[in-house]
């Protein structure tokens, strides 16, 4: 089993990674430190699970080296049975994050969405209806504040609910209530 952590640069992916594995990766505010990808191990129900911290990327249409690496790593994971993608989304920039998440879903991966940095979203007075979002997308959606270790275990416990979703269904559900 393998878990890929994906998301935009600077959404707190590396902190997330540290929370899961406690490995020695450097987490910084500037993009770039994670260009060399880092991977570590986590134990889940007594099994060893590989966790990969994929370089931050804005979309699956690579624009620079780090993004190329990210896309290549995602491709690689296709061959692995039981590959999950945790897509870390900045709650205060939901649309941009969903764009990436949607692309990954379209590729047929089992995705979990972690809405990260909730405190900032709150500062800006943004509220996101998790359940509604989960219902529309058909993938688990969990709120987290990685830097304070809030919601991380929720993400892991919801892993089992992640499954590939047909984007057509999302389109129907997404358009339906609008």
């Amino acid at each position, binding site marked *: 089993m393998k878990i890929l952590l994906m998301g*935009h*640069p*600077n959404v707190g992916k590396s*902190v997330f990674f*540290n929370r899961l594995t406690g490995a*020695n990766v*450097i*987490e*910084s*505010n*500037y*993009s*770039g*430190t994670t*260009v060399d990808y880092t991977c570590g191990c986590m134990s889940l129900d007594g099994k060893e699970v590989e966790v990969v911290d994929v370089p931050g990327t804005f979309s699956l249409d690579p624009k*620079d*080296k780090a993004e190329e690496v990210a896309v290549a790593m995602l491709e690689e994971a296709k061959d692995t049975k039981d590959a999950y993608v945790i897509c870390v989304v900045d709650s205060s920039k*939901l*649309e941009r994050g*969903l*764009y990436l998440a*949607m*692309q990954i879903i*379209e590729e047929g991966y089992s995705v979990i969405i972690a809405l990260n*940095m909730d405190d*900032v979203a709150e*500062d*800006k*007075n*943004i*509220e*996101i*209806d*998790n359940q*509604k*979002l989960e219902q*529309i*997308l058909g993938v688990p959606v969990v709120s987290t504040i990685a*830097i304070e270790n809030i919601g991380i275990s929720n993400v892991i416990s919801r892993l089992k609910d992640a499954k590939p979703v*047909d*984007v*057509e269904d*999302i*389109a129907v559900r*997404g*358009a339906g*209530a*609008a």
Partner: protein
Amino acid sequence: MKLSPDERWNLIDSIADQVVTYGKYRHTLKDAIGELTVKPMTGIPIAIAVLYGFWSVFGSFAGTLCTDGFFVKLFDGYWLPWLQVVFPGEGSWLYSILIDAGGMTNGEFILSDNCFEAFGVLTSGLFVAIGVVLPAIVIFYLMLTLLEDIGYMPRLAVLIDTVLHRIGLHGYAIVPTILSLGCNVPAVTATRILETRKQRFIMMTLLAIFIPCGAQLGIMEEVIPDLIGYVLLYLVIGYFIFGFILNKIVPGRSPEILIDVPPYQKPMMANVRRKLWMRVSSFFKVAVPFVLLGCVVVNVLYLAGFIQWLGDILAPVFVGWFGVPKETAGPLVAAFLRKDLAVAQLSVIEMTQYQMLSAVVLVSIYFPCVATFAMMLKEGWKELIGSVAVLAVVVFLYGGIIHLIGKLIGVA
């Protein structure tokens, strides 16, 4: 099935409409402060204040408290006399290499009375590594890590972006530049955040030549506290002048990058601790062996008469062109192994203040230490050769210019 980008955005917009409720958007104090630090009018004074604080804490902690307060006393008062008593064979070559090499003047063997002048592996080598460099590196990386985790560094990058465009880089080049003030080795690795080979080459060359590392800064703070401001001034000016020239002559592009600036936040202590530990320990794995090895090699070269020989050959250049005494040849050779050690050696050579200033600037811009050299080789041998060529030109030109300026203002 896959969507086209437009379909995808439309779908996302419609989803977002359903799940996101925006309260009345309120500019928070945090947002407003964030803006202040990025706008040039207010951001530049703030940046100056941050650098002031950085430097002041660095000097107080590393210089006043650790080195002057305790380590000088420990090494000069206890460690050196103890070694001089217990170690046999005063005057032998082994003794010279390990304990005290600088005493053989006027045909009589005189023991050094402090660790700056002894130049043995176990005396100067250890003193420089532990007494001077260790505290400097710890406090430097601690503050850098704090600034990063608070979120100030990306803002500094945005602020300085326009200036760095002039030298073919962009704001994020401030990251390797500042890292380099700690140690050039991780800074060379950090140049990878720049996109094109041209940018990486300019950055690597500039930081290898013009940015003094934490070890050097620590030593300078200790040996020539009055001159350090001028040394830095010369280096900063050189950084921009040669960056500007390199940008003009190096082929390639310098694209702009989009930077996302994260909000200010409270740093997490566990994260700071881990990062600090990684940086300090990896620095020491590289630094300590080179300081000690550097001592050995330099002492052997001295004993073999190689340094005097080189000094004689290069004397016309040193005296005539750079305007420094020919004894500085030794430290310049040593600078290849460890620059910090070289500054310590310079400090005991008789010369005028301006000569000292020129010599320290020369040592700083002169070759990067072996460890940096190795890192640059890893990044590509073509770049390395290019950098070395630039370096040779820079040392020659800049050394001459500094001498000339000294002459013009009448101090050289």
